[in-house]
């Protein structure tokens, strides 16, 4: 009797597979799968776009939902690609870990598909981004689905109420405005804070740090070395820590819980004067039910000197898995997603800034998204994080040390010095 059970079990396991329902049984049919994560409103819209794609091309696409957290999205993709799984065929990659995926040989070159049947050529996209991020060893390995740059959201009503002319051009002006408004607003809103931004120990913290450091600061990759410990960077980290502990402009949970979504909800709940976030938050701030609808403005991030602010290049790029079982269909989907028409829809619906340039000149877009004109300049000047395959180790070190400084366990100087030493050790392993 037991032998029969064992046989049943073994047969069941051997037949086990990975991507079809009901559970664990390998399907013979080939399906195009598209993996994406993000805020819920985005995921719903993706479903809509994919339905449109299927209507047009007859290719059925299955959406694989991923969590919002970028590290977790990367982990599920890495596991699948390391295992040379057939799914996902098409997936989004954060600009921060695209280099590692490319260097690991997981991305199929898109050059054969560029410029043909519905897929735009390289010239349609921001050249600097395509060159710095989407090209690996001379081949196009990804296309920018949407590009991001950190921007400063601000409460137009509160600035007017407290007689502040406009969005701050320098961090000092931001501090003054925040202190002034905070003093007033806290009387009837104890939970009100001047400025919310991403301080939790995750990738977002590194982006914010690069923006605080500004155009003259940031992380350079010079001759295979990654430089983080510079006087400008120390000043920026000191300012970030003081925002929380010294001036009390940013909430205490900035360095424990503040991520994009936490900051957006905080600002959208009307509890903050300024918010650093990605452009996706704009449409959500304007959505019905948002306490800041119609009283929110967007502006480039300030710098320590006027005009020397910068924006950390973010955004997600779409790539084709080398192990996928639907390359041609995948390329068609990529062409569709990066087409002018769809990029325009993404901009209008989700506030995602297109990776292609022509959408910014579109009259309807300019009219509906007035800040796009400025945003294009921001994006053209946005600076990418170090595009190196071992960036995740560098980032992990920075996340740990920067967060330690924000939590007050290390002084900004100590934190950056320690980070620099650790980065030097890591690099020695990948000589």
């Amino acid at each position, binding site marked *: 009797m037991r032998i029969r059970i064992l046989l049943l079990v073994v047969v069941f396991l051997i037949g086990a597979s990975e991507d079809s329902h009901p559970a664990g049984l390998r399907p013979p049919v080939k399906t195009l799968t598209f993996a994406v994560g993000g805020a819920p409103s985005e995921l719903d819209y993706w479903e809509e776009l994919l339905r449109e794609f299927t209507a047009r091309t007859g290719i059925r696409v299955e959406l694989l939902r991923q969590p919002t957290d970028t590290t977790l999205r990367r982990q599920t993709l890495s*596991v699948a690609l390391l295992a040379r799984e057939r799914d996902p065929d098409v997936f989004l990659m954060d600009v921060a870990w695209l280099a*590692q995926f490319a260097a690991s040989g997981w991305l199929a070159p898109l050059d054969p598909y560029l410029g043909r049947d519905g897929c735009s050529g390289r010239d349609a996209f921001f050249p600097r981004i395509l060159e710095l991020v989407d090209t690996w060893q001379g081949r196009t390995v990804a296309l920018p689905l949407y590009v991001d740059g950190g921007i400063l959201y601000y409460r137009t009503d509160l600035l007017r109420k407290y007689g502040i002319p406009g969005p701050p051009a320098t961090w000092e002006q931001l501090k003054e405005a925040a202190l002034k408004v905070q003093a007033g607003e806290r009387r009837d809103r104890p939970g009100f804070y001047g400025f919310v931004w991403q301080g939790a120990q995750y990738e977002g913290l590194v982006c914010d740090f690069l923006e605080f450091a500004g155009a003259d600061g940031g992380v350079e990759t010079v001759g295979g070395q990654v430089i983080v410990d510079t006087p400008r960077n120390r000043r920026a980290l000191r300012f970030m820590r003081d925002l929380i502990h010294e001036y009390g402009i940013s909430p205490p949970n900035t*360095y424990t819980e503040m991520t994009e979504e936490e900051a957006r909800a905080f600002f959208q709940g009307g509890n903050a004067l300024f918010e650093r976030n990605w452009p996706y938050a704009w449409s959500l701030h304007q959505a019905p039910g948002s306490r800041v609808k119609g009283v929110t403005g967007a502006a480039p991030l300030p710098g320590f000197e006027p005009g020397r602010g910068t924006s950390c290049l973010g955004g997600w790029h779409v790539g084709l898995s080398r192990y996928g079982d639907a390359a041609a269909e995948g390329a068609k989907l990529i062409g569709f997603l990066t087409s002018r028409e769809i990029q325009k829809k993404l901009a209008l619906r989700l506030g995602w800034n297109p990776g292609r340039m022509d959408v910014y000149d579109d009259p309807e877009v300019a009219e509906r998204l007035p800040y796009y004109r400025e945003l294009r300049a921001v994006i053209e000047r946005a600076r990418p994080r170090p595009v190196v395959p*071992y960036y995740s180790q560098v980032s992990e070190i920075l996340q*740990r040390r920067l*967060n330690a400084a924000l939590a007050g366990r*290390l002084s900004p100087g100590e934190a950056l010095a320690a980070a620099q030493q650790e980065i030097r*050790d890591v690099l020695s*392993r990948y000589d």
Partner: protein
Amino acid sequence: MRKDHDLRELLKGYAFLAPVCALLLAFVFLPVAGTLLDSLHRDVTFLPRRFIGLGNYRSLGSDPGFWQSLRFTGLFTLVSVPLELALGLAFALLLEHPTSARGFLRAGVLLPWAIPAAVSGRVFELIYNVQYGLANALATGIGLSEGPVHWLGTSAGAFLALVAADAWKTTPFVAILLLAGLSAIPEDLYRQAEVDRAGPLQRFFRVTLPLLRPVLVVALLFRTIDSLRVFDLVFVLTGGGPGGSTTSLSLYGYRFFVGGDFGYGSAVSVVLFLLAFILSLLYLRASRFGREIA
């Protein structure tokens, strides 16, 4: 020599053991050996694999992230294991005391152990939430602190939060082990102690504790090895934060695997393996291994 064992009988006997050996070899020993081998290589997804001997271990030596997670794992074990033993002993004494509701009590106590750590981790994540967590409600309720306490914000707070959550999950396991030890103590020893006019406290220290010593040692080592390899709770509750102060060795190693650096991650996990292995040798000797079964 065993001349009286004929071969056929032996083979039949070993056939009974074969499937277990095969499974353990394939899915435990082979992976451990593989990981050990990987740790001697520079093995990253974006570079060709190269043998570097103890290179990874040397890098570990100068990697503050590694030392930080080693320190956390050690400290976490040093604090949580004794706490769980003490609490477990108290629970065991309570559970052993004959009451009508004993069945209900035992089921209630078993519950935390049965719930996966990852799931209870999310529950504790909510409990420690600044705005509406249970911890703050209780803290402000009983006047421990006026405003909401930021539990997961500081490394000390996160550490204590982890210890408390871990204690909640594993104390029942320790209690059950000690309960077995308690029930093995013959009743008449207590009656004898009573006759010798020993009060409840003396009875505890003169009878219960000495006789419970072997079980306590087993529970101590069992828990130590378990808490050294903590991963689920840390991953879910604090994600190793704030500032990596609560990153356990397992989580640190895991992060390198996922980041595509198998060599370095394997080195971290080999260090953890050696720690656990040494302790398990102590455990096997301490529990006067296996005499009764034979």
